[in-house]
Each structure stands twice: as structure tokens, then as C-alpha cells.
């Protein structure tokens, strides 16, 4: 049970306070309701590039990092397809420094040409390091493009191509900022050795006078139900064949999400999971196999991926996966196995909640989904899932017409 207090400033900024007096530290977390799904198809990678620019100085503070480090703080940020999150951890005595820095860059950025110029290059190197210069690095570019026809999850958060990042203009940066980085689209969480009244006063003082902005009205085209299986064959300079299968699944806030999440754990969670046990250890068709999804807010991709043992034929490997998927569709999951995956969720949530930073991140994320209180209801949502529901969901999920298969051959 995570305790918190919640209030909203006049400009719409939602503030959550999680007091924990057992630590000498404090965390200040700002989550903006914008991600790569909000980008135009010809300007991809922008939400993430923008995250980099948030460190290039703000309207009153030329250097973001230096004063924070001087206060004994550390920070970082990440961008996903759905959101952008910034966080600071520092000794609680110095929490006001975090308010000062975060509020000034919400007020306005410095918008320097030099910063844009450098961060374009930095992000291009990040792109190369993770997606070009690595074996199998282009798989998700290809898979997303194969699986989505209209939804912006079609491209990765890093961007569709280097050129989109290289072409970013300062004008685009400004427009993006004033559209999305407003109090009304943000959630502030302060956690650690702080009090609610202290946070209230500091939030009013530093964030209270920032213009509210307009709440963004999303009009993202939702992916229609897929009517036929998509397949793609690729040959690349890699040592082993790989097989990726993705199935469209509902978004994070859908009532069926929990049953499907548990199916992914049955198939791929831990060394005793079905796919690892049958395909790696017993049949020896794959040297590794994983099953996961990204928990995206809009409809996402349920993924099974593995590398084939040298000499194994792609069609035999695919058939063996299919047999396991048939089994979850045809047979009810035994009670002990269902209990196992529920126990795993309980334990995972407990370990996740250990870190102050995680607790702050999660409170912001659940608030973004509608209400921070959802965080405390999470385990009961999993506990309520029945084997029958999983059986029903498996049949919908693993329908052949709903599948996207990427055959990635060593060339």
C-alpha cells in the first residue's frame, strides 16, 4: 500500500506527495503526457529529441545539470511511445533546488541553436549505437512497420530514420514545447523525506505562476482489427536465424489487459515458463526465447521472439511455437501454474516498490492513466483473473489473422 496526498494547482498541474521519512533522500518526478505517438509521420523521433533539449538550459537558468550536481543531485529522463518522464533524486534538504530547476524549464526553455545542433548529433549517435550498429538492431523498425497500418506506434520512439532528426528545426522545437510542455499536461510527484504542506508551499511558489496551456486533444487513429496474417522475410548480416511473432493486444487500461499479461508470464516468465522449457530445453530448437509486451496505452503487441539453434529450420521452429500457442487455446491452465504467475506478479510488485524512485515514477504513471489510486489496486486486478478468462483471451489473441511474423535470416 503506497500512501500519498494529491492536489491540483490553479493552472491544472496535478501534484502527488508520497511521504517516506525512512530515507534521507527526496525524488521529484515530472511526467508529461506526450510521447512518440503524438508525432507526425514525417517528423518522427521528435518527442525523444526534445527530451534531450530539455537539458540545454532554460529561460532563467543557463545550465541545468550543474546546480543540481552542486546540490548533491542526480537526474535522468526517458521517452516512450506514450509519455516523457523526468526525474531528480537528491538529499531531501535540497529539494527546493529541484523545484527551481524543473519549474523553470516548464516555464520556458532557452531554445539555443547550439544545443539543438549538438543534440541532433548526439541522438543520431544514440540511434546508430542501438539500432544500426548492432546485430538484429533494425528488427523493431521492421516489425512495427509490418504490424501497424495507421497507428503511430508504426515507428519507434527513437524515430523512423536519421533524416527526421537531422532535419529538426528550432521552430518545430518551440511549437512542440508550447503545445505539450504545459502544467495542464503534466504530473508532478514529490516523494521521500518531505511533508505535504512543504510540497504544497513549494509547488505554489515555483509552479503556481506558469501559464496553464491547453489540454491536448488527441486524435490518434486507432489500429483497425487485422484481417489477415502479415509476414515478412529479411536477410541480414547476423550469425543466427531469428523468429519474431507479434499479436495485437489491447492497451494498458483495457479490462482484459491483466489476463493477457498473465498469459505472457505463463509462456515466457522465468526459467520454468513453457516456451523456455519446451523449446529451449526439451526440443532444443531455440538457444533463447522470450515472450513479452510493452504495456502501451493504446493497443500494443504481444511478442514472442527467439534465436534458432544452428541447423534448425524456420518452419520447424515456428510450428513448435504454434503448438504451445495451441495448447493455451485448447487447454485450461492448471491451477498451480496460474497461482505461480500470480505469485510472481505479487513478488515483482513488492520488489518494484522498494525504490523511492520507482514509487514516484509509478504514481505519476497511474495518475497519467487516470488516477494514482490505481497503483494500489493493481495486484487485486491480477488476483481476480481466472483461468477461463485467460483461455478466452488466448483464443482471440492467437488467432492466425491477428499475427505478424518476421523471419530474420542469417545471410
Amino acid at each position, binding site marked *: 500500500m503506497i500512501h500519498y496526498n494529491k492536489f491540483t494547482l490553479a493552472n491544472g498541474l496535478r501534484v502527488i506527495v508520497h511521504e517516506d521519512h*525512512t*530515507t*534521507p*533522500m527526496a525524488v521529484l518526478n515530472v511526467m508529461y503526457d506526450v510521447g512518440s505517438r503524438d508525432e507526425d509521420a514525417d517528423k518522427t523521433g521528435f518527442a525523444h529529441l526534445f527530451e534531450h533539449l530539455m537539458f540545454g538550459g532554460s*529561460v532563467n537558468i543557463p545550465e541545468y*545539470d*550543474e546546480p543540481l*550536481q*552542486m*546540490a*548533491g*543531485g*542526480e537526474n535522468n529522463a526517458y521517452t516512450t511511445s506514450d509519455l516523457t518522464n523526468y526525474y531528480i*533524486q*537528491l*538529499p531531501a*534538504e*535540497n529539494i*527546493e*533546488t529541484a*523545484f*527551481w530547476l524543473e*519549474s*523553470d524549464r516548464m*516555464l520556458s526553455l532557452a531554445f539555443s541553436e547550439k544545443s539543438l545542433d*549538438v543534440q*541532433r*548529433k*548526439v541522438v543520431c*549517435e544514440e540511434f*546508430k549505437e542501438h539500432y544500426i*550498429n*548492432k*546485430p538484429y538492431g533494425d528488427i523493431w523498425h521492421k516489425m512495427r512497420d509490418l504490424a501497424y497500418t495507421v497507428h503511430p506506434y508504426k515507428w519507434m520512439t527513437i524515430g523512423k530514420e536519421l533524416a527526421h532528426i537531422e532535419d529538426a528545426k528550432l521552430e518545430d522545437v518551440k511549437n512542440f514545447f508550447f503545445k505539450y510542455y504545459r502544467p495542464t499536461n503534466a504530473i508532478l510527484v514529490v516523494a521521500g523525506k518531505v511533508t505535504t504542506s512543504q510540497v504544497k508551499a513549494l509547488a505554489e*511558489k515555483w509552479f503556481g*505562476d506558469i501559464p496553464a496551456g491547453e489540454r491536448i486533444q488527441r486524435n490518434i487513429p486507432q489500429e483497425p482489427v487485422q484481417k489477415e496474417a502479415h509476414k515478412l522475410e529479411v536477410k541480414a*548480416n*547476423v*550469425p*543466427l536465424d531469428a523468429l519474431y511473432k507479434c499479436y495485437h493486444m489491447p492497451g494498458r487500461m483495457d479490462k482484459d489487459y491483466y489476463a493477457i499479461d498473465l498469459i505472457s508470464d505463463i509462456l515466457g*516468465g*522465468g*526459467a*520454468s515458463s513453457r516456451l523456455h*522449457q519446451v523449446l*529451449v*530445453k526439451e526440443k532444443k530448437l531455440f*538457444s*533463447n526465447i522470450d515472450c513479452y509486451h510493452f504495456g502501451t496505452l493504446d493497443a500494443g503487441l504481444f511478442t514472442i521472439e527467439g*534465436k534458432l539453434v544452428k541447423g534448425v529450420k524456420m518452419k520447424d521452429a515456428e510450428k513448435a511455437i504454434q503448438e504451445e500457442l495451441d495448447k493455451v487455446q485448447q487447454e485450461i491452465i492448471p491451477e498451480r501454474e496460474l497461482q*505461480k504467475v500470480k505469485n*510472481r*506478479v*505479487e*513478488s*515483482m510488485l*513488492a*520488489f518494484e*516498490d*522498494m525504490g523511492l524512485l520507482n514509487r514516484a515514477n509509478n504514481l505519476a504513471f497511474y495518475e497519467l492513466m487516470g488516477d494514482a489510486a490505481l497503483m494500489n489496486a493493481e495486484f487485486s486486478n491480477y488476483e481476480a483473473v481466472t483461468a477461463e478468462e485467460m483461455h478466452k483471451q488466448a483464443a482471440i489473441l492467437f488467432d492466425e489473422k491477428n499475427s505478424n511474423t518476421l523471419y530474420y535470416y542469417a545471410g
Partner: protein
Amino acid sequence: MINRKIAPEIKDAVDFEVTLKPYEKFTLDNGIPVYVIESDEQETLQLEMVFPAGSWYESENLIASASNFLMKNGTGKHSALEINESIDYYGAYLNRSCHHEFGTYTLHCLTKSFSALLPTLQEVILDPAFSEEELALFQQNMKQRLAVNLQKCDFVANRHIDKYLFGEFHPYGRVSSMEAYDALQTESLRAFYQQHYTYNNCRIFVAGKLPDQLIPQLNQFFGTTKWNGEATIIKPEISIMPAEEKKFRIFNDENGVQGAVRIARHFPNRYHPDYPKMMVLNTIFGGYFGSRLMSNIREDKGYTYGISSQVYNFRQASAINIHTEAGRDVCEATIEEVYKEMRILQNEVVDQEEMALVRNFMIGSILGDLDGAFQIIQRWKNLILNDLDENYFYNNIRTIKTISAEELHVLAKQYFKPEDWYELVVI
């Protein structure tokens, strides 16, 4: 109206009291020491069992890591699947690791499940089977993984730079290979296990919310017998054999768009008085986001997504290693800038503002790292396994708080001479 140009008052790092919460020590009936940090805030527990079973002690390449890995894959009574089932059922994690000095098994679980997990943990530690089938699978899958990794410039660069520094026959420079995986035999894994995973070489570290009767339970499963017999482990003397050449350029992938750059030199180990001082100088140079290397090479030039400099924590001999992946056409320019930053530290004394900033940053970061029982036991484990005590920790804190810019300057002059550094680019 507030004046946003003026920073709020801060409390300086030197004024923070950094304390390392003391552990409690127990001894099992057969003499195994158990170090404990208790904390009731969460319902979770961590237990580590540590043995002197690192690669330093192996007579054939990979024996230490392979035996460490395969202990979990089947016992005298249960198959690997049954072992994994019983761990997964309770949502627990049983991880293994093996480095130069130690082989370790770490259990993470909800405190309420601890008692139910002890029989499985006991089987894994006391009765591993080392079956032919599990070994064959391990060999096949590790060779496949190696084949993929050998295509990555950063992986290849890490292997080579350690080889140059320490020599390919030294445990710090020795690397895996297809041949070494093929040569593994169950008999030698079993022999290594029996020699090193013995009751008298075991140390246990526990942190988190403790179950009722922790010590009696540990006694029941690990404390009553002289399991695996008493083995005296003699640490062999092994000398480092550095490469004579210092500059290397390797082409691993003709189409690579980036190069992995490594610039490294030898450095004394943690027992040398320069070691804690270098932690401060290295932080300024390349040890945090605001470092000289990051500010210049990422934030000014945009040559890379990240560059950092790291001081190895190896027991016998340490090293400083600067590492980055940079655009293919700017690798050489990156190296130039690294040397330029070394020269600046050799020629100019660090100013007081930067000194204050780095002191504060380092103390803040240690405070954050000591947050929680799991983190505190890690600190203690590092001290205890290296035959050190809290004085070493407090001495490091004192060094951060009090070292002068002049002392750092002396250090830079001694250790940042460009001719002492190995240099490698792998494209």
C-alpha cells in the same frame, strides 16, 4: 514575484553526515559467518552465499563460470525444471554470478516465502548434478550467444583492452572462446565445485525483513554438517603480462557506422593510497554526467551518445578505462579530445567551484546508494570480501570531503601522461 535567476540555498555535502549502518554478525554451528542488515520497511529479503570460486582459481578457461552457472540446472533429487518451478512458484529469483574472485548465489524473495525456499537453495548449493545433457545445452547456447556478441564492436573492444592490460593468460585478460566452451567436461566442473563450494569457504549475507528464526533455519539447512568437506584454497600467484604495443586499430565490421573507443592504463589496486584520490579525479574527468569528457565530447562536439571513464575494482591490480562508442568518422577526433582533457588536468589546477560541485555530487550519490538494506549490505560485502572494514569507507568519505585541488593536480601529472595509455578502436 520570485526571482528565478537566483538558486535556492543549498546544504553543502561536507555538512552531510554519511553513516554506514553496522551489520549484525552470527555464526552457524559449523562456523559459517552470517552478516545481517535488518530492515522492516518492506516485505522482502535478499540472501547471498559467497564462495572463493572465481576465475582466478580455475586451471582451465571457463570452468569457474560454467560450474557456477550449472549448479542450478539439476540436483541429485530434482531436474532443472523442478528446481526452477519451485523457485518461480514463490515469485522468487535465484541468481548466480561469477567474477575473478568469487562465485555467488543470490536469493531474492518475499520474506513470507523464505522458509519454503530453503530446501531448494540447499539442494542447489550442496547437491548439484552437473549432467551431460545440461552441459551440452549450455555449450551450445553460450556459443550461439558468443557468435552474436562477436559482431558487436563494444563487446570485441572490451575483450581486447583487458587482454592488452593484463595478458591473455591472466584471469583479468582471459576471454571466452568457442574452443574453451567445447573443451568443458562435467568431471572438471564437478571437481572445481567440490573444491570451492565447501562449508568452510562459505560466507552468507542477508538483508531486508527477516523471517522468524532466521539463524536456526540457516543452521538447519547449512550449519549442521561439514558439507563438501574442509578445503584449503590457496590463491595462486599470477603475474600480469601487459602488451608491449600500445596502439591498436581493429576492423570487425567493414560496414560499421560507429567505432568502440577504449583508452586505458594500469592503476594500483584499492589498497594503495592513490586509489580513493583517483576516485575523485576520475569523477571530474569522466565519472558523471557533468564530467570533462561528457561536457566536451558529447555536450559540445556531439561525437557520441555517452563517454565515461571508469576505475576497475579488481583485487590484484586495477586500471582506468575510458570507453565510448563514437561515429566512425570521429573516432580519431574523439581520442584527440580525450588526450586534450588529460593535458588540461595536467596543466591546470581544478577551480574551487568544480571541486565543490564534484564533492557534493559524490556525497549525494553515496547517500542515495546507501538508501535501503539491500544497498547497505552490498557496501559491507565489498568491504568484508576485500578484508577491509568501515574505516576504509569513512576514509573514502573523508577524501571526497577534504582532498585539495593541488593534490588532484599532483595525481593528474603522475597518471595522465599520454604515453602510459593503451588505445584501441574497433569498428
